[in-house]
Every structure is written in C-alpha cells, then in structure tokens.
C-alpha cells in the first residue's frame, strides 16, 4: 500500500505538498579575456520568485542606469521585441502543461507566444530548468566535493581538460546557490550567484488584473 501510494505520488506532475513561495536575487557575471588583452566583464541581476505553479523572473535595474529607449522600434508603429526588461512568467496547469508569458508593466500588456515559438524565445519547455535553474539529474553525474559549504549545501564539480562546471546546491531550498562554468585556461567564465530572500506576500502573477493579453505575433509586422 505504502509502495503504491509512493508510485502514485511520484507520477504526479508536481508535489501534493506545496513548497512555500521562494524569492531569490540572481547575479549573473561573466568574464572574457580577449586575444588583444582586453578583459570584458558583465554583471546584471534578476529577481526570481517561484511557487509550485509558477516561476517569475525580472531584471533588476540599478539606480542611475540610462533610461530605456521606448522609441527604438523599426518604424514607429511596431513593436518592442526586447523582452529583457519584461517580467518572464512560466506557469503550469494541473496537467503539468507549461505556458510562457512576458509581462510588460509599462503598458499593462501580457505577451503570449505560441508553444512553437518558445524555443526562439529562449525557453526550452523544461519546468525543471525554470524552477530549479538546472536539471537535478545532472548533479548525479557530477563529483560531490568535500569543499566547505554553507549549511544544507554541497559543492559539485564536472571537469574535463577544457572546461569546468561548479554547482553549489542547497538541498533544503532545492535551489543552486552558485553555478559557474568556464574554460580551464581562465580566459572565459560565467557565474550565477543565487541569494535567497523572502517571497512577497502578493506574488507578481497575482497582480495582473486589467492587463491585456496579446500574441507574440502581434508584435511582428
């Protein structure tokens, strides 16, 4: 009986016991050393808020950043295809079907692509990737390190002569705290640092009343 119940629960698209909503600040950093000796570095941050049914990410704009140019479209009437500043909302229904939408607060618009357009928009259709920021199965293929780690967390490494990947995985939050990839000669690296915080009382996707929904293709001319 216990075994049957376990099998049924395992087959469900998401757990019956809902994890509480979680918030985190994601810091993306990259470094590239070019052949002419220039070190190029980038850094930006996103807010992540997730629940069992939805994942929201939104770029954080530092104070003093130049104002976003609203008048850069091709010929005046259409259409802003730059989703970097929009809220990105991935949710799933009771059947586990995922839906991607972009939320543009400046004109209270929700942009909804077709599933066949998800790939072009950088969404691979994986709840695992959206919710956990990685595929947890990949951790099993990595070497667990004895390196010092925060409580409930452990470092994992995958390394070959050319490249390395380092993950700090927090098993209590089920969230990576750091993901770093790079090449072994040190000329290139990418790192995401994840700092958990408190989820807001009202989740961003609960504040979309009055927004109009348009298709992604409405932005095309």
């Amino acid at each position, binding site marked *: 009986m216990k075994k049957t119940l376990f099998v049924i629960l395992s087959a469900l698209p998401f757990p019956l016991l809902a994890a509480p909503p979680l918030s985190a600040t994601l810091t993306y950093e990259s470094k590239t050393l*070019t*052949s002419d000796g220039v070190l190029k570095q980038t850094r930006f941050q996103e807010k992540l808020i997730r629940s069992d049914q939805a994942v929201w990410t939104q770029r954080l704009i530092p104070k003093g950043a130049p104002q976003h140019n609203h008048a850069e479209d091709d010929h005046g*009437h259409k*259409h802003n295809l*730059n989703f970097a500043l929009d809220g990105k909302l991935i949710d799933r229904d009771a059947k586990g079907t995922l839906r991607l939408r972009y939320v543009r607060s400046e004109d209270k618009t929700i942009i909804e692509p077709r599933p*066949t357009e998800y*790939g*072009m928009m950088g969404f691979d259709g994986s709840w695992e990737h959206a919710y956990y920021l990685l595929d947890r199965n990949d951790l099993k293929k990595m070497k667990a390190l004895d390196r010092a780690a925060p409580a409930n967390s452990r470092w994992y490494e995958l390394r070959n002569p050319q490249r390395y990947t380092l993950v700090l995985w927090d098993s209590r939050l089920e969230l990576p705290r750091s993901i770093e990839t790079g090449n072994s000669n040190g000329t290139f690296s990418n790192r995401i640092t994840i700092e958990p915080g408190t989820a807001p009382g009202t989740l961003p996707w609960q504040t979309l009343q009055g927004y109009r929904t348009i298709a992604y293709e409405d932005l*095309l001319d």
Partner: protein
Amino acid sequence: MKKTLMATACLLALSQGAQAAGEAKNVIFFLGDGMGPTTVTAARIYKYKEEGFLNLEVLDGKARTARVKTYSNDAQTTDSAPSMAAYMTGVKMNNEVISMSPDTKAADASGKAYLNGKDATCPADNGKPVDTILEIAKSKGKAVGAVTTTTVTHATPAATYAHVCHRDAENTIAAQAVPGGAGYNAKLGDGLDVLLGGGTRYFKPKAAGGDRTDGRDLIAEMKTKGYAFAGTGSELNAIDAKKTAKLFGLFNSSHLNYELDRVKNKIDEPSLKDMTLKAIDVLGQNKNGFFLMVEGGRIDHALHGTNAKRVLDDTIAFDDAIKAALDEMQKRDPGLANTLIVVTADHDHTMTFNGYGKRGSNILGTVKNYKDGTEMKDKDGKNYTTLVFGNGPNRPATRTNLVEGAADKTQVLHDDYLQETAVKLSSETHGGGDVKLFAAGAGSAAKTFKGTIDNTKVFGLVKSAFGF
C-alpha cells in the same frame, strides 16, 4: 519608300514589344515578404548549393530581372503596407497605409494611430482609396484571389483588396472582404474568388473567441455568400477546387505556422504550395483569366526574429509554391504564352553574409576559411556565423566561441538559434536596400521588367501586360 515603311513597321513592332499590352490573360504575383537579396542567395545555397538556382530565379528558363526601389512616401525604409500597395496601385503612400492616396495619414498630429484595438478610426477626410490591380482585374471580368501564410488581413494581402489608413485595423480589413456586409469594398464586385491564409480571430466575434467588436461572424457570412470554407489543411485538401467557384480558407486564429514547425509538428495546416494550387484550380475556371497574389509572409517574421533557419525554410516553401504554380500553369498554358509570373519582395532586411567562407560550407554554420577550412575568427579570437544581422535584439555583451551543432539553441545549427546582430535594437528592422524582381511569361510582357525601377512602376507594367 518601301524601306521607310518597313523600318517604321519594325520600330512599331519593337515599341509594341516593349509595351507588351494585353498579352497576359493571367497574372500570378508572388511576394516574398522581406525576401531581400541576401535571403535569396542564402536560400539558394541552403537548398541547391552555391552552383544551383532557386525556382524563382529560373522560372520558365527565360526569367527577366530587375532591381526595385522600395522607399515609401514618408520613409527611406518602407514597411510592408506601402510597399505592397505601391505594387498593387502604382501610388507611393505613407508607412502603415493600405492602398490609399499619398495624403493619407496613419496617425493624427500627435502621433496617435487611427486605431481602436483592431478597428480603424480613420477620419472620413483622411485620403481616398486608390484602385488596386486586383480590383481592376475583377472589373474586367477576371477571377481574383489572394493567398498568404500570414493572416489574410495582414498588410500584404490586404493591399490587394482593401483600403484603410492603418494596417493594424485587421477587423476593418476583414469586413472589406465580405460581400454585401457593412464595410464591404464594393470594388470587389461579387467578391474575391479565393482568399486563403490565417486569421480567424478577425472574422469571429469576441464572444466566439475572436477579436471582432461588432458581434459579426464573418466566416458564417462568407458561407452564406456561397464560399466553400476550409479551416484545416485536411479540409482544404478535401475540397474539389476545380468545381468550386468561391474558396475561403482560414487555417489558424492568427498567422499560419512557420514551415519548419508545420512540418516538424505535423500541424494540420496547408503548405503555401497546397494553397496556391487550390487557388489556381478555382481561378483557372474563369475564361477571362485571373489575377492571383501569393505571399510567403512569414519569411519577414523570422527575419525580424533573427532566426535564419526559419527564414530559409519559409523561403524554400515559397520557392516550392512557385515551382508548383509554374508546372501547373505550363499544363494549362504551354510556354506560359498568356500567363505572366512576377516574383519579388516588398523590402529588404538587415541580414548580411560574412566572408570568406569555404565553398560548400553550411550556410547556417560558422565561417570556414576557404583556403584551409579552419574557423575564421573575429578580432577577439571568436568564430562567427556566415549569416548575421545589422540590428536586432541578440547582441551579446561579450561574444563567445560558437559551436556548429544542434544540441541546444546556443549552437548555430539548432532550429531556434538566433543570429547575432551588430546594433542592439528591440526588433530587427527592415532594410532600405533594393530588392530583386523576376518575371517570366506572357510573350514579351516579362521583358518589360528590367533595370532599376521604382516599386510603383511594377503596377504599370502588370497593368499594361494585362492590356488594361
């Protein structure tokens, strides 16, 4: 005296040849939306390698070519509304305007578009409709039709049969196609004989999941007016078009899927080739001949998305439709003696072709040095793709080495890989360069398409070929 007469007769004959008046009983006008010269070259290499040719380049083996200037009345770089309207009416108009006089404005003095959602709010004194070649053909007793992979109310098909001050008024445009209904374009007489593409949303009321604010169900109205209706590829296939007088098909609530997705996901939508052949079957029944416009409309959308793979797949689908039409018309009209085929684009894009790749390289891949096949590198030592864009959303903060694989969308051969861009813009723009035009058939009519011509001149050449 005799000699003088003969010389005069020769001159007259030459002059008539150049005019080509009345030789075309049928005209098929193919429009690759955004299909600029680089897209044509890249699609050629994609399917037929460097040494090959697209069907649209060969046509009947005697294709004539021209370069077409595409600027609009108010813009150096046009959008699809005035550029297609220039082909269809011979009139230069402002961006966003569909087949109206040059004084027509798409927006008021404050810049607010004459739109309420998808309904037009054009003031009555805001320009006048100008006749389209499709309307003129209809008035001369010919059958007429429009086929597209976009919504049938999108700028390009709309410019053949509708008149409105702003292209985004797709509800208003839809009503212009419904014989006898409010807002109908009476210049269409008893109506378009063929209308195939996407866009049920603009024909259905909001209560039925559409965008119409007037509560009308235009699909039901079209059926009442005698149109055979198809809503899927299977339904279209089941229609005996040779016995159908009026054919109407909407195969998606919005645009049809990209060809790559349609095939990969086995979506029950017709190909552009399927629609074109059905259209010819319907229109070919008219003894006076026909005018048909066929648009490969989503080439442009994939270009805006800087997704070269879908650009090339949709261009090949467009080219396959042209081949099928040529073969069908050769059966009906051997040698295309009375059929003029025109293939062109409404405008260019900013896609460009990097050097110096080795012959035989994958056109979607990274550039391989033609001398030794090694990866060509930029100044920072990173490789780069052959196809890139002048502007668009995908400009990485720092370029990384690219992988010529398809394992995931970061790899350049993947379906969803987005080519890199130079200038960072929200949306890739149209390009302002000239486009190519290819013409064949109808005796000497095709020969009149030559040199560098304005897009408005194409209207006159088609009209003259028809003998109007």
